């Protein structure tokens, strides 16, 4: 252990230089968590809100979340997509209670304030007062202006059918935010084809939200934790792979090409999860058909900081939305999709391979579990720290996956933005 007898340090400082040792308190402090919401989710960053395919028609809306703030993604009568905060300008109510639907306008049931699909306040009951016995009773003050009391409007960017929004209207353009390298992997999936939503999966994971970003910046674990990846060669240390980051080290792509699997002692010897004799009884679970748009790699996992993970694992494609709620918990919402030109066979294939992923997935259920167990370890001794030193101390793109460099990169960025 660290030798520090204090379990709950009063004014903790980051241990040492660099970002290869992450203090447990980075996952347990409420004050830091609120700062993360302010600095990552509510300013300076684009956050995922959904897919255009979820709201194809004018008036379609879907309620979602950025950080802890409820927002509504809506297509207006001109076909444009707006994102507004789900908080009435009058008394602060989260007025939109349905998760999705179609509306001509929004209104708050409490006092019936009415908003356009762009978020402009259109009407206030009794604004000019109520006439009774020849007198006008009440009414809003004469200087009250509708245009000063709209819903909070977010800046919106769409690309390839994906909708991002930001409370920060000074945020850089989405393309610059992603940077050229990550943009290329983003465009690989979202190359302009219309998306077909297959459905949702929702889980509440009792762990700090950053752990999910780290999970998908950690190519070291999948071939060890996940039997299906190690045994069937879907993802493991002897696969041909690359790790790529943006210039700030906040986003990353883990790119891998499936190997033959089987027994390579170098990578599976002594690995508990590796099952030499394992065969699937129903081969449809691994009925992988390469698609032209992959351009080679069989899996690309992209982390867009702070809010979303883009999954392509063989024929299974999804966005995974991180919705934090408190320092020790986040909701994880999976939107699985396909493409408009998918054959019925391909749709079925995507649906069957989806058994590997999500809250019950052969692979992904483990990830939620280990995140919960990490958080438990952090809570019991916030003065301690993790050791993220596989592959050394540096932060750099890589041509293999035996490294935790992407996590070090994320914490270098985190330290800079958080001033820690």
């Amino acid at each position, binding site marked *: 252990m660290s030798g520090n007898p204090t379990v709950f340090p009063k004014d903790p400082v980051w241990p040492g230089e660099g970002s290869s040792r992450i203090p447990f308190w980075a996952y347990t402090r409420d004050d830091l968590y609120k700062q993360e919401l302010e600095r990552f989710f509510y300013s300076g960053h684009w956050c995922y809100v959904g897919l255009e395919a979820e709201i194809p028609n004018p008036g379609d809306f879907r309620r979602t979340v950025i950080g802890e703030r409820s927002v509504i993604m809506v297509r207006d009568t001109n076909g444009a997509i707006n994102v507004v905060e789900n908080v009435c300008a009058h008394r602060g109510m989260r007025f939109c209670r349905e*998760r999705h639907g179609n509306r001509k306008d929004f209104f708050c049931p409490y006092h019936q304030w009415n908003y356009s699909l762009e978020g402009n306040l259109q009407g206030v009951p009794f604004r000019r007062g109520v006439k009774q016995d020849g007198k006008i009773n009440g009414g809003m003050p004469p200087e009250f202006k509708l245009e000063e009391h709209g819903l909070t409007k977010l800046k919106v960017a769409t690309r390839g059918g994906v909708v991002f929004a930001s409370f920060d209207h000074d945020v850089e353009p989405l393309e610059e935010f992603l940077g050229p390298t990550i943009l290329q992997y983003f465009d690989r999936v979202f190359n302009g084809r219309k998306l077909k*939503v*297959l*459905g*949702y*999966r*929702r*889980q*509440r*994971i*009792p762990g700090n939200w950053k752990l999910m970003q780290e999970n998908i910046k950690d190519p070291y674990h999948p071939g060890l*934790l996940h*039997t*299906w990846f190690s045994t069937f060669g879907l993802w493991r240390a002897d696969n041909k792979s690359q790790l790529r980051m943006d210039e700030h080290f906040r986003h990353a792509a883990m790119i891998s090409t499936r190997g033959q699997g089987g027994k390579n002692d170098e990578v599976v010897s002594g690995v508990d*999860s590796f*099952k030499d004799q*394992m065969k*699937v*009884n*129903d081969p*449809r*679970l691994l009925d992988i058909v390469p698609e032209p748009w992959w351009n080679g790699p069989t899996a690309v996992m992209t982390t867009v900081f702070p809010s979303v993970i883009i999954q392509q694992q063989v024929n299974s494609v999804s966005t995974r939305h991180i919705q934090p709620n408190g320092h020790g918990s986040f*909701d994880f919402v999976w939107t*699985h999709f396909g493409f408009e030109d998918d054959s019925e066979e391909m*749709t079925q294939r995507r*649906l*069957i391979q*989806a*058994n590997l992923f*999500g*809250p*019950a997935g*052969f692979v992904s*259920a*483990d990830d*939620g*579990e*280990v995140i*919960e*167990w990490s958080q438990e370890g952090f809570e019991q001794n916030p003065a301690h720290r993790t050791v993220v030193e596989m592959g050394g101390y540096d932060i750099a793109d890589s041509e293999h996956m035996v490294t935790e460099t992407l996590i070090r990169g994320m914490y270098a960025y985190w330290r800079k933005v958080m001033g820690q």
Partner: protein
Amino acid sequence: MKMTIDFQTYFELLNLYSDYAMAVDSAEWEKWPDFFVEDGTYRLQPRENFEQGLPLCLLALESRAMIKDRVYGVKETMYHDPYYQRHIVGTPRVISVEGGRDADTIHSEANYLVVRTKYDGESTVFNSGHYRDVIVRTPDGLRLKSRLCIYDTEMIPNSIIYPI
């Protein structure tokens, strides 16, 4: 078309529901596939997908062989916090019957509630939903041709490992 079934058949149906619950609550996972016919399917689907006509399930096991693959996953490959589960299954409601007096295909449904208890933990409602089943008569008794579990539970408490 709604038809009645005789009490003997209904009794067998009751047994199927209670035997299934007993098997999945007793951690006897190998018994689980035996409740299905060979081309039987098991699907666990969020209510929101079902109601919107979206096909995605949490689990979509398309054959008894695939259900066996899940058993192998539960027993051998998925690292997870161990837990007890307890199914409370309501009285099945027969929706329709095909096959006349033999009642060889029954469409029925039943509410269920699954309570989870982890080591050192309290017992909490884990998953709440209803089964929509197609049940067929086989030489070995009634078996599931398909079981669709549509669950209300909006947020899965981290993960689901064992069969519902």
